[in-house]
């Protein structure tokens, strides 16, 4: 059975993929549908959803719908980019630890554990505060706190694959360590890492929202977390200010998780039909 066939059998995953595509569409269409700055005042403040503003306006008269569209860009960008960084760091550390073993492994794993012992959100807050809030510092902070589990996973995969005969055959053929790690072992270790990465995107989006809620977001870019944070003072008068961005976060994170589950089912060899009689 092909990858797509088994992926498409999981209805949740298909729904998740559809929602994710829709969110991506929001992000891409934002500059065209709402070609103004989402920070601009567009009318009367605190208008409920209705004629003037489809999803209402905030206390400075900014359009909530435009905020959601533009916020999707920030959320997706941070989710994807920080995951990519975290995966690259984690895979390199884990691969080196698992492949070489011994002292290298001990050093790399103690280093990883050092990051794991610090509460990750506190560390992220600290990092953003030190680096001054901005898109780059948020990405750095999220990658720094999320790579350790990737490293541990990559290490265990490499440990298992390291002594497989095809890796030893490559050693005997004189292939260099770098090529063995990235050319021979990594492609075989990638499946669980891809699955983990897909779920990390969701965590990164949540972390960004939490940072923005605390006022540590990029001050020049509107994000869903910022919108909820800004709305908390008027929560009882203007429910729409926190409900709609909250829904956006909820739906996006749920969709990513569903897609991750689907990837797991489709890629995980244990779930696959056994071919041996």
């Amino acid at each position, binding site marked *: 059975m092909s990858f797509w066939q088994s992926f498409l059998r999981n209805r949740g995953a298909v729904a998740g993929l559809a929602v994710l595509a829709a969110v991506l569409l929001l992000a891409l269409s934002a500059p065209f549908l709402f070609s103004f700055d989402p920070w601009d005042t567009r009318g009367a403040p605190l208008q409920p959803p209705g004629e003037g503003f489809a999803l209402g306006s905030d206390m400075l008269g900014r359009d909530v719908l435009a905020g959601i569209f533009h916020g999707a860009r920030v959320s997706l960008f941070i989710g994807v980019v920080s995951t990519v960084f975290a995966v690259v760091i984690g895979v390199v550390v884990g691969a080196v630890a698992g492949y070489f073993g011994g002292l290298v492994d001990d050093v790399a794993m103690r280093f990883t554990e050092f990051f794991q012992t610090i509460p990750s959100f506190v560390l992220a807050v600290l990092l953003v505060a030190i680096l001054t809030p901005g898109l780059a510092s948020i990405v750095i902070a999220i990658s720094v706190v999320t790579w350790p589990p990737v490293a541990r996973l990559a290490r265990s995969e490499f440990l298992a694959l390291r002594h497989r005969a095809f890796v030893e055959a490559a050693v005997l*053929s004189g292939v260099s360590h770098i090529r063995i790690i990235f050319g021979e072992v990594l492609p*075989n270790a990638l499946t669980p890492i891809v699955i983990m990465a897909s779920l990390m995107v969701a965590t990164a989006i949540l972390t960004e929202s939490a940072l923005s809620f605390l006022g540590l977001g990029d001050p020049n870019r509107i994000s869903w977390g910022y919108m909820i944070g800004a709305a908390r003072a008027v929560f009882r008068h203007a429910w729409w200010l926190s409900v709609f961005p909250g829904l956006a976060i909820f739906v996006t994170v749920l969709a990513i998780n569903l897609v991750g589950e689907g990837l797991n089912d489709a890629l995980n060899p244990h779930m696959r039909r056994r071919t041996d*009689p």
Partner: protein
Amino acid sequence: MTAPLLEIAGLRVALPAGSDRAHAVDGIALDVRANEVLCVVGESGSGKSLTAHAVMGLVPKGLAVAGSIRFEGRELLGMAEAERRRLRGSRMAMIFQEPMAALNPVMRIGDQIAEVFRFHGRPDRDGSRTLALLDAVGLPDPALIRHARPFQLSGGQRQRAMIAMALALDPVLLIADEPTTALDVTTQAQILDLLRAIQAARSMAVMLITHDIGVVREMAHRVAVMQEGRVVETGPAADVLGRPQHAYTQRLLAAVPKLQPRPDRSAELGATVLEGRGLAKTYAGRAGLFRPGRRVAAVAGVDLSLRRGEALGIVGESGSGKSTLARMVVRLVDADAGTLTLAGVDGNLLALRGRRLGPVRRRVQMVFQDPWGSLNPRRRVHEIVAQGLLAHGMDRRQARARVDELLALVALDPSSAERFPNEFSGGQRQRIGLARALALEPELLVADEPVSALDVSVQAQVLDLIADIQRKLQLAVLFITHDLRVASQVCDRIAVMRRGEVVEAGPSAEVLFRPRHEYTRLLLASVPGRGVGEETGSA
């Protein structure tokens, strides 16, 4: 003649859609009579194991079973599950290939046997029946061993414990699915003796599933030969083994390796290529906080020498250190002591490191045991074969041409180059592995059990190929195997290893037919089917 105990008629087990064939078992008819041993023999994928599982009602969910299985006159297919469960264990029992997987690892042996009694409503309150059973299967000190957990027993002891469990309620039919495949040859001989004695003492019917013609020779009263889900030949053992009618049976019998030494080739051999002195390797387990580290001398002072064009067989059971020795020679494992000299290389091969080791590596190459683990599933065959050439700086076009030559050398179709390993059978994969090893034109080829994972018919082809290439290229070959028959076919000299030491070494004919060491004699005596209805090998 009485009515058969077990009658299988028109049994079909369907495979899921999209498999390589529609039925794993395709309309077979078999019967097992009381007090006889029926051996069902076939290669992997012949459906022999699934047939056994169908009798026990253990076919995986989702596979449709049709036809008829009558046991003691009652139809088993379609019988209520509760009733079948009552029959299982009490009237029919099964033992499996891997006793470690079939026993509960955290439960004491005695308790597991007592459980069988309890489930069938005949609790063994004073434990006397459990003790008697453990005694009957020849386990030493039953009173102690009933308190042991499975991991504390050896492989042979575990299989004995499994047999004791199976015999608990005096079944009339015992199904044994490859019961000795995971065991060493000397242990296998003991377990087969035990099964034979128990069968005779209890007048039990035994359905023995095996791929090993040697085991069939030892055990069978009657034989059924299966191929691709069908029974192609069945009859009394003497007839099927002595005068096989079906072409497949004939092929299968012809492919069984015989104890027959290779003709003397000492005139063709060249200068010494490899010389090892006092090779040693000790594995030390990590010491815990409260216990000292365990030390195992895997290889304890082995000498060896190999001439150009010569094949040296290292024969031993599991744990004898033969694989460690091979891995030391190719430098996948660092030796603790000893010197190894390779013709044309200054100094001790074992002491070379880093940059100085690189150029030497290409002169010593290896073929691995597991045809499924030794090829990277994500690479095409030409990339696999060419990896060494590219790593040593050959340009891509030249390497690609060389790959075609190599594939031709190992008798693979040139179109194989573009395919992925999962499209090949086990024998073809071993050929690819061989092509990879030969790519760098080594002087020494180390083959670590290269055929032990293959079916006999494929095994014979791969062995022939190795012997052929060795002659053609004047290769020195270090051939590691547990099977004396295999060693006798390809090796000029044989060294027998036990617990890290070489107990006997010499020309193949000497070692096989005039063994001096008692352990060699024991190994030879344990070769299944030896001298039973076979002319060769009885010398």
